[in-house]
Each structure stands twice: as structure tokens, then as C-alpha cells.
């Protein structure tokens, strides 16, 4: 059974169809790269998947259950977690505190239990371990406002890991980074995948996607153009025509 099953999902904004009857399945343990030119509908598809947008039609199943109508926090509770393209740190908090908030998921639906539980300081070690896991243990005590983008991008991944995700949706985690930083985060994602995490990645850095993703899906003008092994997809004439603008 697929972990994520997107069926015939559509979403229009005004007269513009951003996502047009897209169907896509993600198997447990997959590492899917979602590519396509600007305006292809990639981010919308990700926002539909995690519940920040509601589809006009179609259905989304996660782990065998229909989540189409569930709000984002309910999907995150089930392990379907998004990291945003523009990093959204809690700027005045330290990186440890930022990551710690990922563990709030446990109390996320129960204000009474949240009020009755004081011991968030005990979870500090967990948060610090996650910062170490993404390679930024040295920055644990710095506030999010003080550290560069590359560190924030890793912090965001650590914060998402703190929620205990089963499927991590990453919206352009390499955007704005130089080649070295991008490659380092690419390696980090590969490592997380090797450790068993299922990943879906939107990325414009094609070289990096081709290096790390195990499968590719190509969107163009809201439609799914091709899906499969990266090399086969990149050889597909339709993909070359649409995505790379080559005459096939």
C-alpha cells in the first residue's frame, strides 16, 4: 500500500488552474523529487498535500486513510509534515527552543495537558540531539535571527524531525544556498532517507535533485507530465520539451 496517494487532485485560483487532476503515489521509504518550471503547481501540490490548501476536487489518502478534509495540524499529527520554502523560524528563540517546538505536536490537540506539563526543559537533550543529527550542534544556543540561511534550513529540518514525521514534504530546501551548502544539505537528506524516512522534495536545483532523489515526477502547467526513475524521466521527450525548452 502506498504511504501517500494523491488522486485526481485539482486546485484553481481565480481562473488559473494551478493543479489539474494530478494523481501521484508515494511508497513507504521513497525519495521523490518533484520538479517543473516556475508556476508548474509544485508548491500548490505540496500545500494541498499537507492541508494548507483545500483541493477543488480529488482525494488525498495518507497511510490508507482519507485526509482530504483534514486541517494541516491533523495531518502533521499523523506524520505528514511540511517544511516551508521560506524558512519560518521563531526568530527570537534559540535554535534549541525552535526545535523543541517540534515536540509540541504531542500536546498539540490538548490545551489542558499542555498547561499541566511543565517539563519541556527535559526535552532539551532531544532537541540538541536533533541539531547534532542535522550537523548544527554548535549553533544550539544562538537565536534564529543570528544565524545564516544555511543553518536555518537545517534547523527547519531538525524541527520537522522533532514532530516524528513519517513523510517529510520539503519545499525547496536548497533555495538560496551556494553549491557547497546545497550539496551538504543534499547529503543530509540522503542520510535521512537511508535511515528510513520517506521524502518528497520540490527543488529547482536540478543537478542536486538528480543526484539525491530516487524517483522523479515532473509537473507542467498543473499537470503531471511524467513519473519514474530519474534517468528515464529525463530522457522523456515531453519532459525535455516542456521543462528544458528543448526541441525534441
Amino acid at each position, binding site marked *: 500500500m502506498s504511504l501517500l496517494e494523491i488522486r485526481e487532485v485539482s486546485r484553481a485560483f481565480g481562473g488559473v488552474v494551478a493543479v489539474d487532476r494530478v494523481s501521484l503515489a508515494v511508497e513507504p521509504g521513497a525519495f521523490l523529487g518533484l520538479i517543473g518550471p516556475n508556476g508548474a503547481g509544485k508548491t500548490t501540490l505540496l500545500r494541498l498535500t*499537507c492541508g*494548507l490548501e483545500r483541493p477543488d476536487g480529488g482525494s488525498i489518502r495518507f497511510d490508507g486513510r482519507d485526509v482530504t478534509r483534514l*486541517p*494541516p*495540524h*491533523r495531518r*502533521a*499529527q499523523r506524520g505528514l*509534515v*511540511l*517544511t*516551508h520554502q521560506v524558512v*519560518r523560524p*521563531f*526568530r*527570537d*528563540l534559540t535554535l534549541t527552543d525552535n526545535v*523543541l*517546538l*517540534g515536540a*509540541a*505536536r504531542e*500536546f*498539540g*490537540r490538548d*490545551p489542558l*495537558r*499542555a*498547561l*499541566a*506539563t*511543565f517539563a*519541556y526543559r527535559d526535552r532539551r537533550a532531544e532537541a540538541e540531539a536533533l541539531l547534532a543529527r542535522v550537523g548544527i550542534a554548535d549553533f544550539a544556543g544562538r537565536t534564529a535571527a543570528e544565524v545564516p540561511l544555511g543553518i536555518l534550513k537545517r534547523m527547519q529540518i531538525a*524541527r*520537522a524531525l522533532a*514532530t516524528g514525521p513519517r513523510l517529510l514534504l520539503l519545499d525547496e530546501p536548497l533555495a538560496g544556498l551556494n553549491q557547497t551548502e546545497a550539496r551538504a544539505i543534499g547529503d543530509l537528506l540522503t542520510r535521512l532517507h537511508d535511515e528510513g524516512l520517506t521524502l518528497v522534495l520540490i527543488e529547482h536545483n536540478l543537478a542536486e535533485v538528480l543526484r539525491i532523489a530516487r524517483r522523479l515526477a515532473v509537473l507542467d502547467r498543473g499537470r503531471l507530465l511524467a513519473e519514474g526513475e530519474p534517468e528515464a524521466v529525463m530522457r522523456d521527450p515531453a519532459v525535455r520539451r516542456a521543462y528544458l525548452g528543448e526541441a525534441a
Partner: protein
Amino acid sequence: MDAYLTSLLTFVAINVTLALGLNLITGFCGQVSLGHAAFFGAGAYAAALVTTAGHPFALGLLAAMATAGVLGLVVGLASLRVREDFLAITTMGAGFLFLGFVRKQEWLGGEFGIPGIRPPFGPEGMAILAVASALLVWAAGIAVRRSWMGRIFLAIARDEEAASSLGIDTARFKLAAFLLGTVSAGLAGAVYAHVVQLIVPDAFGFIQSITILAMVVVGGIGSNLGAVAGAVLLTLLPEMFRFVDTYKLLVYGGLLILVMHLSPDGLVGIARRLLGAVRR
């Protein structure tokens, strides 16, 4: 104790209770409310109705907190789909609705309000009750701050969408903030009604809402100590300088602008920076 000082202490404590309650909603959870006086009024009216009907004060106190809390949940529910400016306008509208409603109700005394509310204790007793209420809400504020609830409020205040992406049911926590804050206002209202012994709708209008917000902002939004400091300062200021009372809105408005420009984290922020400078 001197009768004037006793009365001053009582009003300081009532305002501290109000400011701490609003700080839970606006300071911790980031939900701007321009209608806090309505919940204060709801509590005052509920308690006055209960005790003037001959029921014990304790029942009035409970009725005040329950009425304000239920009203808080209703306004909270109505506010769930709006944010920032729109939330401010919605809560302001709720305040006006409350006032408009109360003014037209025969059974609430209309424009003339409810007279003859008999206090359960003498002035000193009422002062102790007011201080105890303030301490209770202060303790609640500290408990919220130190618990996961405080952390989650902070996340919602900073970035609601990011918070919900982390699995936080933001609606539920915003309602919890509204409930806690408005129950506190109801408590303050019950004490207030039995201190002044005559309540009129105008005491719970927009100016009162802005005054409470000014206390929170001037003291240092999002800090319990700040709410306390702001409430103490803005209650004493008109007492010390009569002109402040005459030009209350002008002075509070000016203070709000000044604080926002010079020290957005209020008096607490200034104190913190001074302490930091001294330590260095």
C-alpha cells in the same frame, strides 16, 4: 489603612487582574483584542445580578467567571477565521455589541445600570479580595508561561501557519487563551462591581478596553511582570497627576506610540536592557 490608599490598592489590583488576563490573549497568544472591557463588564453585571437577587457573593463570583468565559469562547470562535487587523476589528465590534446590548436592557438597568450592590466585606476585605484575585491570575500567567501551553501560544503568536504545520491545533489553543483571559476579566468584574457598588455600561466601553491594552503594551507585551507594571503605572498616573485623568486618552495614546517606537517590549524591556548594561 488610610481609606484612600485602600481604595487605590483595590483599583490597582483590579487593573492588574485585567491586564494579566489580556496579556494571556494578546501578549502570549498574539491575538489582538480591543474588546476586553466587554468581558470585564459581563462579569460585573453577572455578579451584580446574582448578589442583588440575594444570592451569596461566592455564587456571584462563579457566575461572573462563567458568563465572561462563555462570552469569551463565543467571541473567540467568531475570531478564529480572522487575524491581526481583522481580529482587532472583530473584538472591537464585540465590545460595542456588548455595550449596545446592555444599554437597551431594562433588566440590566439600561443606561443607569445596577445600583445598590452590597459588598460582602468592608473596604479592607475587598482590597484583600482584589489583591488575591490579581495574585491568582498572576500565578496562572506564570503557570502558562512555564508550561507547554506557553510554548505553543508563543509559536501561534509568531507564525500561526508554521505552528499548524508542526501539528498544533491552533484553533483550540486560541480558544483556550480567550477562555483563560476572559475568565480572569470576569473575576475582575465581580470584584469591581462589589467595590464600586453601582455599575453603569459606560465603565465597560472602548476607552476601558484601550486602557487595559495600553497597560499590557506599556508594561511589556507578553510578560506577566510587564502587565503588572503597566497596570500599576497607568492606574497611579492619573492619581498622581490630575491632568492625566483629564487628558487620559491623549496621554495613553501618546504613551502607546512612544513605547512602540522607543521600546516595543515596554518597561520590562527597558529594565532588562538597563540590568544588562549594569552587569556588563
